[in-house]
């Protein structure tokens, strides 16, 4: 199977993630969609790595995983704190930071 198909899959997953971030209000779902986008990019990186025949893309993918893990820790903590304070996990309820 040609690696280009993995790139198409990655694009599809990324689009689904992006749409989820934009459309859904629930912070957990938005969060999962972000994970989806990150992993879509991982998939694309790995596919590119295969297409070019070197390991640069795979190394990049590891970096993304590390960053994603750190982001999960911080993000989940924020979401939990938000839920405790407001009894809601809607991202639109947390809209006080404006002029």
């Amino acid at each position: 199977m040609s690696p280009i198909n993995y790139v198409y899959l990655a694009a599809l997953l990324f689009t689904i993630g992006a749409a989820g971030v934009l459309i859904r209000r629930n912070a957990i779902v938005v969060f999962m969609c972000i994970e989806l986008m990150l992993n879509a990019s991982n998939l694309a990186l790995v596919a590119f790595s295969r297409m070019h025949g070197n390991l640069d893309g795979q190394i990049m993918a590891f970096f993304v995983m590390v960053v994603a893990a750190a982001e999960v820790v911080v993000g989940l903590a924020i979401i939990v704190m938000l839920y405790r304070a407001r009894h809601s996990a809607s991202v639109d309820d947390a809209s006080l930071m404006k002029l």
Partner: protein
Amino acid sequence: MESLIGLLVGAPLLGAAVLLVGGRRLDRVGHWLASALAAVSFVLGAVLFAELLGRSTGDRTLHSHLFSWVPVEGFQADVAFQLDQLSMVFVLLITGVGTLIHLYSVGYMEHDERRRRFFGYLNLFLAAMLLLVLADNYLLLYVGWEGVGLASYLLIGFWQHKPTAAAAAKKAFLVNRVGDAGLAIAIFLMFTTFGSFAIAPVAEAAGEAGQGTLTAIGLMLLLAACGKSAQVPLQSWLGDAMEGPTPVSALIHAATMVTAGVYLITRSGALFNAAPDAQTVVVVVGAVTLLFGALVGCAKDDIKKALAGSTMSQIGYMILAAGLGPIGYAFAIMHLVTHGFFKAGLFLGAGSVMHGMNDEVDMRRYGGLRKYMPVTFVTFGLGYLAIIGFPYLSGFFSKDQIIEAAFAKGGTQGWILGAVTLLGAAITAYYMTRVMLMTFFGEKRWKPDAEGNMPHPHESPKTMTIPMVVLAFGSVFAGGLFKLNDSFVHWLEPVVSLEHGHSPVSAGAVTAATIVALVLGVGAAWLQYGRRPVPAEAPRGSLLTRAARRDLLQDDFNHVVLVRGGEHLTRSLVYLDGKVVDGAVNGVAAGFGGLSGRLRRLQNGFARSYAVSMFGGAAVLVAATLLMRAV
């Protein structure tokens, strides 16, 4: 001997300082102290005069260097005096007439509780004027020049509780500032052109400068002279200056202040001789002022303002003579000195009349005073005869010489100037006869003053009459004395580079014409004011009379052109500043304010809307990149 020059200036300056700083303790002796110091100055002047007389003609200049004022590389300003024949004449006039006026003021200001201060200012006036005529460089002269302006301001506004006096003082000060700016610019020009502003080096180097520069310096000096000497177009302060006490008017008009302009032009003779264009303007200014002042003098009912018009006119004669160049300088100064005598006498006489008439100044309220004030009548009358140029009195000799010099200018100019000076002589005779007839002759037209007190005219005290008598002697004999062997002219010859003009009209014919003009003027005045009773209320008069009563519309002119013009200019500048300059600045600020107000709405707090802009931005970037690739 040279050190006396410093003392000469120092004595009145010391008097001013002591009187103004000393306070009320000096109230009882202040006036005598000031008069004594003025007299000391006069005595020193006389001693120096004797010293100069004893020397040979070429050696009659004394120098006295007091100290270096601004010792900077390439810019040397010293406080140094130079006493030559010209300065000597002024010193004697200033201190002599000044001392007499001090003495007169002792009586005149007797009931004024601020008399000590008044005498302090008088001394300051003398000191400033002496500094002006003795300075050996233009910068020091400028100090004296400004000092005279300051002292005149203080004295004209001496009765500052009267709003008119305060306004007159401010007017004199402001109009003089215009002239002072001219002097300052002239000094700047001298320094840049000649590298010096000391009088002697500038005079020596005068011929080397370009014609344009010399004309510019000449015109700026003329502007300065116009301010101090009340010449057209800066004449408007002189009439209002009558708000000051009468001795001040006498001092300003006879010995100090208005003579400064004539002095400046004569002193800068070398510059003017090298700039014929500037000289022409000087002559024109003199001729115009001569007629202007004379016409104003004809219409005024206020005795002091009539005399003020006369001063303006007589100074016009002097400026005209000074503008004629080497053929005229000596006669300008001679007329200045004789004028100093009779005009001081006339003003002191006017003050004496006012003193006896409850400070009434309207001549239509006088009449028949000769029986009540015999001394004033005789001294005023002699001054009157002198100023109209009655044969063999002072004014006759000095004015006659100026008319002769005017004819000697040559060509059409000479004829025009000669005619103007003759016409001026006729008008002088007319208005002075008018003053004389309205004041001392005719029936009594006295009216009670504002408080209902009928005036009881009486002769003034001795301190006032003695100076008047002395000045009357001067008015009668000074001219003849100066004319004797042409001694005055010969005395000034080394300073003013005298030349004798060639008049197309013989001296005898000029004298005859002057006497005819005199008779015509006196006759016309007698027909109008002597033969018929003078109306106590001023008749409406012709258009010219009404204009002359308003000083030939000088104030209206200044108001319309300068005040209104200035107001319009400043208003349009304020408008321009408000609308254009501030408008641009405020517009930019408001534009950015509005724009950021719009942009602020983008930050709405919804994370998802930020995400949309982020994705949108990323999409645009990607699209742009792809597009660029494709192209």
